[in-house]
């Protein structure tokens, strides 16, 4: 069944690489129109051009998700370009390197919570008025299995993703009367640009095997796994699904 997201307009932050890039492609393949938002101009442009070359409607937009002015411009760009906005995928995120918790500086901590947590606040501030005007909307937040099963060395990151999970449920219950849904995806460690940051060791086959060993399905998470889950949440067929957090983790959390 192609075209499950026909005519929907989706904004994907961190759309220039990793999970975000895969989400952009999966959404476009299902008929959505895409704003590829990324801090890295070249990365966002590359993904938007790839989508356009496949005949999809897409545009890139540079955004620092921790800045209100940027998030305002992002939402404006979507509405101006496509006339509406249906889905906000809060995918952009970062982590401090895997290290003892007291070695993370206050500046790193502040930046982490601005990017991972404040971005959710800002996306609500700027998207909800548009969603309300249109009579509905859909938030898809990329959290992490770290929110459910924390690993040592990632403590402050774990906390930021725990906040994303609870904020997702809070958005869902408070905004449901406005027909706005909110769900989260909790991926486990994946082959994305953040892999080495999470592992805290060099990316060798032996080190990867250590992480894979904790996953019943026996492999790392792939960007396409997360993208498929995001399509599910964006799909009108999941209309009665809100306030959930879907682990895409090969059974890591169970």
């Amino acid at each position, binding site marked *: *069944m*192609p075209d*499950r997201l026909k005519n929907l307009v989706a904004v994907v932050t961190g759309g220039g690489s990793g999970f975000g890039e*895969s989400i952009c*492609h*999966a959404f476009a*393949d*299902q008929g959505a129109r895409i704003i590829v938002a990324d801090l890295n101009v070249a990365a966002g442009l590359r993904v938007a051009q790839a989508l356009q070359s496949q005949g999809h409607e897409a545009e890139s937009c540079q955004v620092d998700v921790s800045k209100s002015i940027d998030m305002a411009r992002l939402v404006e760009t979507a509405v101006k370009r496509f006339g509406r906005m249906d889905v906000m995928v809060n995918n952009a995120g970062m982590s401090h390197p895997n290290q003892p918790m007291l070695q993370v500086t206050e500046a790193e901590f502040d930046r982490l919570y601005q990017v991972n947590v404040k971005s959710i606040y800002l996306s609500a501030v700027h998207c909800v008025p548009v969603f309300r005007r249109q009579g509905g909307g859909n938030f898809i937040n990329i959290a992490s299995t770290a929110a459910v099963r924390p690993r040592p060395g990632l403590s402050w990151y774990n906390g930021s993703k725990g906040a994303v999970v609870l904020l997702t*449920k809070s958005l*869902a*219950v408070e905004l*449901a*009367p406005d*027909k706005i849904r909110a769900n989260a995806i909790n991926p486990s460690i994946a082959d994305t640009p953040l892999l080495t940051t999470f592992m805290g060791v060099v990316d060798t086959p032996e080190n990867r095997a250590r992480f894979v060993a904790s*996953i*019943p*399905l*026996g*492999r790392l*998470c*792939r960007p*396409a*796994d997360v*993208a*498929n*889950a995001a*399509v*599910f949440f964006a*799909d009108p*067929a*999941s*209309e*009665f*699904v*809100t*306030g*959930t957090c*879907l*682990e*895409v*983790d*090969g*059974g890591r*959390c*169970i």
Partner: protein
Amino acid sequence: MQPWHSLEGKQIWVTGGAGHLGSAIVRELDASGAHTLCIDLPGKAEALVHQHALRHTTPAAFDLTDVDGLPALIAQSAQVHGVPDGFVHLAYASSAGKRLEQLTPADFQHTFDKALTPAFVLSRAVAELMKPRGSGSIVLFSSMYGVVAPDPRIYPAGMTPNPIDYGASKAAVLQLARYLAVHYGPSGLRFNCVTPGPFPSAVVQQTHPALIGELSRKTALGRIGASADIVGPVLFLLTDSAAFVTGHSLAVDGGWTAW
């Protein structure tokens, strides 16, 4: 990337496939070209296939409470239809529906024998068939009342609140899925639960409008579930789109358990 929700030509078995939720699932599977085995009480699956002129669906009647006979029935069906790619277990031999104070130990035991034990026996039998192939998705059905307790105040006088044996057996299904997911994960099999919110039957909707209002109020979305609401989530878990999702409890509850 795998095509979204592509189940065309796949072999999918659904127990309770002619029921309130099951029939919505079976009809969509049939429409998407899946070869569906619709398992229900004698006559019910045939009626569904006939009524909706289903083209890819085979009706079947199993006695799901005959736990000793189930593995042989499953094996025979696999010989006829092929080893299933997906298995959805919806059938629930319902509880006595008695109030907590009146529920006898035998009633309690009966629910577990007739509802929970078959879920385990079926899951294992199907998984063992799928194991040599190294792939398969099994979807079990839990309930919001396997996660949170019913509020007795919303049930009208004379009506039994959702019974304790039902909730306890549905909670157990969640753990079945997790345990089986870890056990069969290395064999490439996935086990997940769909955990529905309020999906009262048409009869309850007609006879208890006040209860429907209360159930609606307790979801964030302010409404009860329609049978169509369950279809997308079940199909998602069956397809390769959920290839890395296992051991999960997917709430389809309008936000009931989110707050």
